[in-house]
């Protein structure tokens, strides 16, 4: 995966300003989950509007098919509506929890034979076909560029060989044994690179995770 350029709209912001922006949105996210627990459809709509574009990007990045990605995102948000109590504020941020719901589903799907066959077929065609129903622009809350900057900065700071295994695993949906096979590396090397890269990532994001 190629990382997109760091968002110029948030360059030049101080770390404290980034933290403030992320803090604000994290507090609001937790409030939305509380309201969804009370079965407030409007809170659900807000959460969806806020995170569906990122969830779609993640699902689409893993499964490589817009239609399947849409299904995965819908499934994940349906799970949020049905079981918002599954979110434990003591264990991390709403956004991270939400993306993990999407990612688990995307990886499950991509590892099934049928999905792999579809990916192979699609790899020979346009990998990002346009969707005529998706004419809307992505108008994000202005704190999300700060989050993107933080994550992209953390990712590019990881040594390339460690970043490569993390990207293949997370965005490619490959297991560590498949990565070892693909890169012709000993499994132990893949494991150690993953661990070192994840330690760095956790450390880099640790100061601003909420």
């Amino acid at each position, binding site marked *: 995966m190629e990382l997109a350029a760091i968002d110029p709209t948030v360059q030049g912001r101080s770390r404290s300003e980034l933290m403030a922006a992320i803090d604000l949105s994290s507090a609001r996210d937790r409030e939305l989950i509380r309201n969804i627990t009370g079965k407030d459809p409007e809170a659900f709509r807000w959460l969806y509007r806020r995170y569906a574009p990122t969830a779609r990007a993640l699902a689409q990045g893993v499964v490589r098919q817009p239609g399947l990605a849409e299904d995965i995102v819908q499934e994940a948000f349906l799970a949020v509506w049905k079981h918002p109590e599954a979110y434990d504020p003591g264990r991390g941020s709403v956004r991270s929890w939400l993306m993990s719901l999407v*990612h688990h589903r995307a990886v499950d799907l991509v590892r099934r034979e049928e999905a792999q066959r579809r990916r192979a077929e699609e790899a020979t065609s346009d990998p990002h076909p346009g969707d005529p129903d998706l004419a809307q622009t992505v108008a994000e809350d202005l704190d999300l560029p700060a989050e993107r900057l933080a994550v992209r900065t953390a*990712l590019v700071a990881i040594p390339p060989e460690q970043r490569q295994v993390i990207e293949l695993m997370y965005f490619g949906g490959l297991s560590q044994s498949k990565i070892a096979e693909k890169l012709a590396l000993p499994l132990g090397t893949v494991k150690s690179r993953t661990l070192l890269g994840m330690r760095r990532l956790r450390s880099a994001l640790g100061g601003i995770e909420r």
Partner: protein
Amino acid sequence: VTRDHSLIEELLAVEALDGLDSGDREALDRERGTHGECMECERLEMGFAEAAGRLGFALDPVPARDATADEILRKAGALGPAHPLTSVRTHERRERAQGRAMLAAAVAVVVLLGGIAIRTATHGGELTAAFSGQANVHLAMTYTPGESGGELDGSGLRDLPAGRVYELWAIRTGSPIRATCFSPNKGDVRVKLGIAVQAGDVMAVTVESASCPTAPTTTPVLSADLSKIS
């Protein structure tokens, strides 16, 4: 006895990325059983899970239809069947509900920005409040409490996508009151307020559709607490 966490840490790092093979999963289950109630394991698991969960934000977002949210709610039985047109009354109720929810967000903004200096100043009978929340944005409101004719003046504001505008709100006794909508010209703005602001108002700027809704629908990006000005 200090336990060795190296194996479980390695497995948890991979699990957070959904990269375990089935054999590794069994190994992780065994390790978890061995460690039992383990604070360090919890800490490692949460740290890796949080970092992995946020990786998705490295990607550029892909547009999603707002209407899908209602389709999901219908699938869950939380909404009735779709209607081609939403009545004005329903729309107004929705906007009021949004306004109530936004109030909490706006208050959170001011509370959380408490650590960041909210610059204020007075000039004779007229007061000036500076907004905080975004770097390199200078936005100030000159006003006399209780009187109309206040003015918003600023520079460095980000251009918004087509169909979006900034909207200024006064949050007063639990309700957001629309003060004005504006679109910056090369980052600059100078606009008269449509209301008379009060000394205790919290002012908040949100990004809204060009129709200038009657209640905020997004998180405030700039704010100023007028109660701190004397």
